[in-house]
């Protein structure tokens, strides 16, 4: 027998309490993985979508708290193209639009001459011709989820559009987006002459000094903010709040798990004062008694973490399966997040067991051993 075996025996003495604590830790760890994964996935999915634009910089309205809700004049784009080193500028209007059956989809508007139309990968169909209106290219996932085919019509904000193409993007957001001629989307959303932001491709992306110079030049041309495309959403208030709320909930869940370990072990200590007295009587030092209880806490945390990892992965899949979330965010906890959470849970479980263990060492062994 070893100290871990001894701890197992003690935990098995109160199987219901130990099982409930393990489940509590499991739910805490699972919630943490799911919610923290959600927070990270918001950025990841937006970044993957931006990557598919193959852009180096994004330009959005200066001081805009919500990037998706802000707009700026489409004409700014022509000013940006004059900056030396800028290769391509393309505006993009984003609108969350009601579609068939009341579902909301992300509608993406590009000007007729946007390079993004040319770059858009198609599974079938074609791209809109210059000047063509009331046509859309839908993402492959939205085509499946709405049961739409090439040639069908689709409603966007109560206006009917004909599906002329189905894209085959790889990012979740693009797979669920509907590509619309910019003029149509501006009319639909009453944003005539406006875009949400511009994507900029530079001639020499390998030159950081050149990118910095171009960024400064863009910001000098208009009241805009330039960010690397992968960092575009970092200052978005709405996404920031989403991240903050999910992270806060994640930490609260984990904290609850620690409290459960603390409560379970504290009760165990108070119920086992006599045994702790015996341990002292047979020569166990306070650090050794403390260590034995901490091992119990760590075992609870480790088993709870293992269950929590499974629950976290399951929870992430369930969250992604909710259409309102799954269309924009695929919650995929990374291996790093899972490993870090499991380690943190075991560490915090240890911390949660320190106080009860300390209480145990403060017990008067004589009082514990005194006969009634």
């Amino acid at each position, binding site marked *: 027998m070893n100290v871990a075996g001894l701890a197992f025996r003690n935990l098995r003495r109160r199987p219901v309490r130990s099982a409930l604590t393990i489940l509590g830790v499991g739910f805490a760890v699972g919630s943490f993985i799911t919610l923290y994964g959600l927070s990270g996935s918001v950025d990841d999915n937006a970044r993957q979508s931006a990557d598919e634009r193959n852009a180096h910089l994004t330009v959005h309205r200066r001081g805009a708290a919500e990037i998706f809700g802000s707009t700026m004049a489409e004409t700014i784009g022509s000013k940006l193209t004059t900056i030396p080193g800028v290769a391509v500028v393309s505006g993009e209007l984003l609108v969350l639009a009601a579609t068939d059956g009341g579902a909301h989809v992300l509608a993406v508007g590009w000007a007729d001459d946007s390079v993004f139309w040319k770059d858009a990968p198609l599974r079938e169909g074609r791209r809109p011709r210059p000047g063509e209106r009331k046509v859309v290219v839908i993402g492959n996932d939205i085509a499946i989820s709405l049961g739409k085919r090439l040639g069908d019509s689709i409603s966007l904000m109560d206006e009917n559009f004909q599906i002329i193409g189905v894209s085959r993007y790889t990012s979740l957001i693009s797979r669920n987006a509907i590509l619309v001629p910019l003029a149509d989307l501006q009319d639909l959303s009453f944003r005539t002459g406006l875009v949400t932001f511009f994507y900029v491709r530079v001639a020499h992306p390998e030159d950081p000094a050149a990118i910095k110079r171009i960024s400064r030049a863009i910001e000098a041309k208009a009241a805009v903010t330039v960010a690397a495309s992968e960092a575009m959403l970092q200052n978005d208030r709405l996404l920031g709040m989403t991240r903050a709320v999910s992270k806060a909930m994640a930490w609260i869940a984990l904290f609850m798990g620690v409290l459960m370990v603390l409560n379970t072990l504290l009760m165990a200590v108070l119920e086992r004062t*006599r045994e702790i007295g015996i341990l002292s009587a047979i020569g166990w030092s306070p650090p050794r008694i403390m260590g034995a209880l901490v091992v119990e806490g760590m075992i609870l945390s480790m088993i709870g973490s293992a269950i929590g990892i499974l629950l976290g992965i399951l929870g992430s899949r369930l969250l992604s399966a909710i259409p309102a979330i799954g269309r924009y965010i695929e919650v995929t906890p990374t291996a790093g997040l899972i490993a870090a959470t499991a380690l943190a849970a075991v560490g915090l479980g240890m911390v949660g067991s320190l106080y009860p263990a300390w209480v145990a060492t403060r017990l008067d062994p004589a009082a514990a*051993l005194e*006969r009634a």
Partner: protein
Amino acid sequence: MHSVTSAHLQGQRELRQTAPMSGTPLIMLENVEQVFDEGRVVALCQVSLAIGHGESVAVTGPSGSGKSSLILLMCGIRTPSRGTVRWNGDAMGPPSAWTRLRRSEIGIVFQDFNLFPTLSAAENIEMPLFGCGLSGAERQRRVNVALEAVELHARARHLPHQLSGGERQRVAIARSIINDPSLILADEPTGNLDSDNAAAIMDLLFGLHQRRATTLVFVTHDPQHAARCARRIAIKDGRITAPAAATSARELT
């Protein structure tokens, strides 16, 4: 350090009276007092006592007289309010020193066995060995030796609730000798046993005392068990009232 007072001198006289051995005592109490509740309850008062290597000592007295307090002081589970406890002549100080002694030099046997209910007899016996730096094989060897000593090998895998009272006390005794201690302290080891089992347990304790030359100090209400000891110490109201020295059990009977 304590000042020399009349009480102290009285304690020294008692110490001489209760110290028939020669050489440095194994354990010695000098003017020890144990009070509780800010002095309102006196468990032991001016107790001086010296017990030599290999002695057998019975502590007798009515309930609440301070016998158990004396045992707890002698193993350092309780710290005296006043006075000094010496081990091999050295004044015992911090609790950690006592912990080391209980791990290696002092075995304790309780009236109500105090076994761990989820552990088998062998595992209960093994408990004091944790943290001693012994290999698993060595721990197992010592457990086997202890089981043999208490003639309980056949019940090694049984849990305490599967053992009789006498067997449980044998497990407790095996646990107390697992580290080959110099001193066994037993607080009414037969208090929860019938007379046959009580006699068997006392035979076992005295056998260990004789074979291993272990110092044996036990609390008992039974005059017959006390009579088997070379010395008897009677306590009443926290004071030693009848220090007795004898060279053989026969003189006491």
